[in-house]
């Protein structure tokens, strides 16, 4: 049984330009103890989906317009708002993209940790300090004693993200939502952080939702993948089957546009032509149709449903790859 099930989630933003349907009928589920990657380009609704699960969508202008978010037999969207703080942190934790601003600039590391320890476990004094040392040790921070007294601006980006992870893990959540945790970091640090998250996941058995636009990160870290495009799920698969054989043309395009060996001036990196459609007034039919090399007349008319194509994978496409070709 899945830990988290998101059904037909719709989140809209009311802007001056009109209603932006940032997340338009997204469904996915997270199995316990697995890492789900959500990939897609900027503005496809990855982060908004995650914020919707936590019910942290800025309101106004945002609003969750429909759908169900089933967490441990409860629909989070039906819960009174006053009960959400007891789920946030305790059951679902989140880490954010930019570690530079995610820590309160006037608090020391210790004050951040202390607050969580006190609120979550009622720990204070020596016990809290011991637990804080341990937490910093777990995320690989050398010399925790001096780090505890440091202010965020005295730490490097990687350090800060480690602190954020330590904070999120301190709550011992069942699910960790990581919203582009490595995007703001440089490559070597990215690798360390991802490795750390995998390690911690193995040790604690929690589930992780990893939001990223980096397919490399997905390949290295995740078990399952959801590919999103323009507020909808394009494809859902396990990591191996997705990378071995993409079903949705968009996924194929994404994979092909990854930098790889053998690129020359004459044979440059392939890219997906066109741009992401406006979410205020999305095209009818398949949203990827205007950019799709396989699009036919039907695609611009009928919206494809997310259907199971083969075992363990779903795609929202009228003409999925791999059916009519070898």
């Amino acid at each position, binding site marked *: 049984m899945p830990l988290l099930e998101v059904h037909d989630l719709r989140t809209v933003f009311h802007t001056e330009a009109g209603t932006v349907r940032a997340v338009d009928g997204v469904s996915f589920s997270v199995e316990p103890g697995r890492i789900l990657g959500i990939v897609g380009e900027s503005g496809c609704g990855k982060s908004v989906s995650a914020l919707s699960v*936590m019910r*942290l969508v800025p309101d*106004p202008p945002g609003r969750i317009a429909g759908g169900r978010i089933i967490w441990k037999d409860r629909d989070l969207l039906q819960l009174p708002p006053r009960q*959400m*703080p*007891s*789920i*946030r*942190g*305790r059951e679902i*934790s*989140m*880490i*954010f993209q*930019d570690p530079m*601003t*995610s*820590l*309160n*600039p*006037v*608090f*020391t590391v*210790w*004050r951040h940790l202390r*607050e*969580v320890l006190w*609120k*979550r476990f009622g720990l204070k004094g020596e016990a809290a*300090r011991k637990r804080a040392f341990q937490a910093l040790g777990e995320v690989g921070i050398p010399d925790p*004693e001096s780090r*505890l*007294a440091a*202010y965020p601006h*005295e730490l490097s980006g990687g350090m800060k993200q480690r602190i*954020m992870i330590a*904070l*999120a893990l301190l*709550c011992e959540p069942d699910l960790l939502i990581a919203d582009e945790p490595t995007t703001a970091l440089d490559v070597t640090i990215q690798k360390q952080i991802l490795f750390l998250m995998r390690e911690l996941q193995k040790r604690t058995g929690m589930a992780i939702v990893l939001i990223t636009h980096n397919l490399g990160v997905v390949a290295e870290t995740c078990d399952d993948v959801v590919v999103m495009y323009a507020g909808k799920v394009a494809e859902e698969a396990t990591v191996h089957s997705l990378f071995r054989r993409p079903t949705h043309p968009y996924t194929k395009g994404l994979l092909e546009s990854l930098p790889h060996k053998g690129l020359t001036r004459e044979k440059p990196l392939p890219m997906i032509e066109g741009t992401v459609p406006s979410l205020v007034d999305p095209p009818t039919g398949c949203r990827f149709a205007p950019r799709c090399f396989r699009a036919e007349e039907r695609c611009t008319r009928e919206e494809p449903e997310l259907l199971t194509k083969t075992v363990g994978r779903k795609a929202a496409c009228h003409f999925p790859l791999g059916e009519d070709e070898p």
Partner: protein
Amino acid sequence: MFGFFRLDPITRKRLRRFRGIKRGWYALLILLTATVLSLFANFIANSRAIAVYYEGRLYFPTFVYYDMATFGQEDDWGFDDSEADYRRMREEFAGTGNWVLMPPIPFDPYENDFTYADPPPNPPDSRHLLGTDSQGRDVLARLIYGFRISIFFALSLTLVSQIIGTIIGCLQGYLAATFDILSQRFIEIWSSLPFLYVVILIGTLVTPSFGLLLFVMSLFAWIGITYYMRTETYREKAREYCLAARSMGASPFRIVFKHILPNALTPLVTLTPFQIVAAIFALTALDYLGYGLPAPTPSWGEMIDQALQPANRGYLWLSLSPFAAITITLTLVTLIGESVREAFDPKPYARYR
């Protein structure tokens, strides 16, 4: 032991920079000394002695009433049941082994000290260093007590208005939406109430007192603070650490007052000295107009009012002393305020063109 409680390095840097700005730093030292000293005004300017040693016993009459009989005194008409006259004691005690320790200014601010041969106001002399006013009261003593009232009134008003203004401003900024709009309209209506009329109205109903004036002025003084705190909160709550705090299950009030407030304190700190200036000035103005503290209370506004009465033309010391006192005090506070602002300026070498 872990150094957890050290000050935020940015705050320390600002403090260091403030100390480096000499005019502000010394102004603060002077003003702090004066404020602390004014707490002991009863030991500085008082007609009662600080200590009296009489017939083998020590008396500390500063806050206690002793009649003349206690010290074997009697007045011109032979009675001994009025309050002891401590100023006479030095001569009376000469050669007896008893002694008296008088404050440096042996007059209290309410005491009428004059002879009918030489009606007040009397110009400064060795008895009254700054002269006496039209009722024979010592000007220096009244200045000192007036300073105490002014500065503590200003500090209290600033504190109260900052607390109220911060709470309301932060809630406006954080809750936004309906609460913000409604409270902002209320503030607009409220701030258009003419402050002076309200004070006059209340003054006709009840005798104003320190507490009442503080209350009435606080009714209006908090408004200015909300503007700053509201915008600060709006800005801070958009930062990601607030989202992070929420994602960890922090409640809205916790986020506002524990996470946002420490980040939004800069305008509050830089405004404080200027608020103090405004408060001193407001109290002086009210006293001058006669709607402030009731009559015998020593206050600067009342002293200026008296000095400017047509009957008191030509008695320069009456106007010079309170004017000088106000000017010096306000200049000191302004110097502090201006230095604080400079110390908090993130661009110390910025030039405004």
